[in-house]
């Protein structure tokens, strides 16, 4: 059940992760990012509440982290319209909440995107606009993350027909080494505590440090303040994937 936005506020002793419209936006294993964030927080002794918000529910303003996933054209359009009417996500971001938006999600939180020739207005959390590329970008992606974020190489799988064009208020998340991303040169975008990416895998399964960055934002601590946890398997997965696609 959704949390009543009127009776909760940020700053309680537990971390609230809101999953926006899983019934519309969960085409590419998106629940993985939710479970990975929850697990990594719990491993640090932090209580977590995960709050899936269905399309016909109100988005609470009091979440610490919001996840927006991938979807097909029709659901994506529906989600954009509903998100704009609701306004909860935009209010939460103004209040400092962190956002991770993936695939259709990155387009949804931009200014607008295109579906079947129509321009659809987005949630306007990032200064970017999306249109359709000449061909679908499908395959492994590796990128060098914006050094200001202090993360290792970004790895994931992309599958999208859209291209993102960033405005001056959005920073590219990474410089593309392998793959396409936004436009062949950069991948994803970030500003403040909002991150958008095209990467599946899901993204956080292959990029545990990115998960920790989002957690550190939500907790209001530096990334280095999070105690390390056992990442044997995610590290093996990263190594295997990077070795499979990076030139030797």
């Amino acid at each position, binding site marked *: 059940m959704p949390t009543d936005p009127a009776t909760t506020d940020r700053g309680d002793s537990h971390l609230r992760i809101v999953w926006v419209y899983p019934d519309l936006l969960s085409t*590419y*294993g998106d*629940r993985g990012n939710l479970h990975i964030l929850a697990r990594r927080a719990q491993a640090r002794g932090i209580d977590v509440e995960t709050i899936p918000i269905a399309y016909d529910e109100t988005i609470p303003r009091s979440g610490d982290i919001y996840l927006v996933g991938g979807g*097909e054209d029709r659901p994506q359009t*529906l989600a954009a319209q509903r998100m704009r009417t609701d306004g909860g996500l935009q209010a939460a971001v103004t209040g400092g909440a962190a956002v991770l938006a993936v695939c259709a999600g990155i387009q949804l939180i931009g200014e607008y995107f295109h579906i079947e020739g129509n321009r659809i207005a987005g949630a306007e959390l990032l200064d970017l606009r999306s249109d359709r590329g000449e061909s679908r970008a499908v*395959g*492994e992606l590796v990128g060098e993350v914006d050094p200001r974020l202090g993360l290792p190489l970004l790895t994931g799988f992309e599958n999208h027909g859209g291209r993102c064009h960033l405005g001056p208020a959005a920073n590219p998340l990474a410089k593309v080494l392998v793959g396409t991303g936004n436009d062949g040169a950069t991948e994803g975008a970030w500003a403040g505590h909002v991150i958008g990416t095209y990467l599946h895998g899901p993204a956080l399964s292959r990029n545990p440090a990115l998960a920790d960055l989002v957690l550190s934002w939500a907790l209001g601590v530096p990334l280095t303040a999070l105690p390390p946890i056992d990442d044997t398997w995610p590290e093996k997965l990263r190594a295997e994937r990077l070795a499979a696609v990076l030139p030797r």
Partner: protein
Amino acid sequence: MVRAQLATALVRTAARLSRMTGRGDGSVIGGRIGLAVEPRLLTVLARGRQVALVSGTNGKTTTTRLLTAALGTLGPVASNSYGANMPTGHTTALAQSPNARHAVLEVDEHYLRTVLAETRPRVVALLNLSRDQLDRAMEVGMLADRWREVLGALRDQTGPDPTQVVANCDDPLVTWAASAAPNVTWVAVGQRWQEDSWVCPQCGAHLKREGVDWACPGCDLRRPQPSWWLADDDTVAGPDGIRQPVTLQLPGRINRANAVTALAAAAQFGVRPADAAPRLAEVASIAGRYATVERDGRSIRLLLAKNPAGWLEAFDMVDRVSPAGAPPPPVLLSINARVVDGLDTSWLYDVDYATLRGHRVLVTGDRRYDLAVRLEVNEVPFEVVDTFTDALAAVPPGRLEVIANYTAFQDIRAELGRAN
């Protein structure tokens, strides 16, 4: 006609050579050669036969096998029983059974248009639509659109024996596509995986579900009344009060559901459920699937699961208990992500593996680390092994359940020698 005869002869020769030289089972190469000589070969070979097509995301091969068994009561049946489900495979199947008056063809869901046009089937059975290999296939909503177009065009069909569609009314995408067709028999065979059908394919509103029933609040799309359904675990209910007990060797609720579709489709050819049911009971394994193979004291059962919906059905088949209070059997999961499997492994997170807790779980395959990370997040204890042989060595004599996706399954079959 001479050209078609020559082409047909070439199909058979090429298929035989392929088998003799051990290159394959011959089900694709023959058709490819034949179609090169006579592009209309499939149309020519289908002419004069009573054809049934079977399509959908999951259960195609099994339902094709069950329907072939049912129609066997009428005489020889041509079928692409090895799962070669594109026109080359159909051409080979028909060329190899020149005397079969009936044919049951499994059709890749992206080839429905072509095969429908070329074979003018008596029956088209449509099982389900869900996400599958999204990196190379179209999104499932788009596929439903295509189906609807193709099936709507059946309204322009002329001549005797119009095509009858047999479709699953529990799947909103299938229902929407099939409801464009002029003649539909609705079967209720369930939909365990619902993540791809929350939104009305017709108007985009959010579908309302209540038990098995579903309806769109925004338009007139709703679950049609079925005339065939699974009445209980071993009874198929049909029109005119039919109550047919069905006992299968194949495991799982999904295969009993496939049997409902097979009986409903067979009835369109005049086969009574009472005559068909014993034939269904004889089917023990399908291209190695569900087969139990004995090796070094291990009884290894092979289950194929290619996408999230398929995994949910496979879990339903895994033995929960062993006799005499022994622990439940170990389960080996094997995942590859080669081209035919789909290159994106994100779907692993669409499957809840929690149901495997209590089993000893081993993981292998090209993408075993993806699976390891997934199971860790799912809090399912696991062991990573590098090969299938290592997995066999790691488990004690007795049962071993194996669930694998497409090429992982083929690799294991190859290691075991052609099991079947």
